[in-house]
């Protein structure tokens, strides 16, 4: 694992893996959404709106997965002080935020016809909204730390502390009364009918590949910026 923490090796791997993940993810996601949109029958209770499941659930999981990636990368950075881990954490922030926002928006749209309301301030919805704010704060903090030349340890500590919200989101429907349904998929068990489970599984894989591809693209961009900046600074010093 430490071998890939070398920026040169990472770039060699990421150069072919980024387009592969993005293309594979787009194909699988398109197939899953087409499947869910055209082949799945309406649900007995939710009617046609059950099709929102194929976007809402993968983006919810990846919204939480993004912060888990930030927390793990931050821990690796704080323990081994490897700069690529800090770049990986920053790379996961933007796709995590986008998926958290899509989850919130599609959940709100789904709530109106099924619950009769766009929004309720219950544990699940509020903790997911907090996650979106945490992402925004993390992105701002990481950018400010880079601009002001402050240690990357500050956003890394914030990334670790913010991870407290992940189990809260996960358990919120169990701990508190909520309009949101309890977990439908747990370890090895599913309350979802097989007819919905197939396209959902493909959508989860497709969106996950897209997430991975975007993280690699963000990491390549951040790394290229750092390398260009370092080279220009070195040239300026040599000229002096």
């Amino acid at each position, binding site marked *: 694992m430490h071998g890939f923490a070398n920026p040169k090796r990472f770039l060699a791997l990421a150069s072919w893996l*980024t387009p592969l993940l*993005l293309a594979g993810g*787009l194909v699988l*996601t398109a197939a899953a*959404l087409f499947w869910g*949109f055209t082949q799945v029958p309406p649900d007995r209770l939710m*009617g*046609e*709106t059950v*099709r*929102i499941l194929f*976007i*809402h659930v993968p*983006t919810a999981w990846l919204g939480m997965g993004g912060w888990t990636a930030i927390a793990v990368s931050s821990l690796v950075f704080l323990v081994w002080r490897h700069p690529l881990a800090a770049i990986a954490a920053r790379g996961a922030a*933007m*796709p995590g935020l*986008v998926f958290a*926002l*899509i989850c919130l*928006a*599609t959940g709100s*749209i*789904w709530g*109106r*016809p099924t619950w009769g309301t766009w929004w309720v301030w219950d544990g699940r919805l509020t903790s997911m909204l907090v996650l979106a704010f945490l992402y925004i704060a993390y992105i701002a903090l990481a950018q400010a730390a880079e601009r002001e030349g402050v240690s990357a340890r500050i956003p890394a500590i914030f990334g670790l502390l913010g991870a407290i919200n992940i189990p809260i989101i996960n358990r919120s429907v169990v701990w508190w009364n909520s309009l949101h349904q309890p977990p439908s998929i747990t370890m090895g068990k599913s309350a979802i009918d097989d007819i919905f489970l197939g396209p959902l599984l493909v959508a989860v894989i497709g*969106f996950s590949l*897209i997430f991975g*591809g*975007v993280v690699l*693209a*963000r990491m*390549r*961009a*951040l790394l*290229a*910026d750092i*390398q*260009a900046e370092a*080279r*220009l600074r070195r*040239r300026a010093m040599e000229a002096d």
Partner: protein
Amino acid sequence: MREALDQWLFVYAAYTIGVGGTLLMIAWSWIAMKRAETRREKARKR
């Protein structure tokens, strides 16, 4: 009187936001990556 909701409108809205947001994110991150790598190459050649 009970409000009649066309369920498909909600499905279309959710798919538009989900697919549109994802495609915009991919396009933006790809363009930003290519721009940053071009900038690095230019800095190398200077």
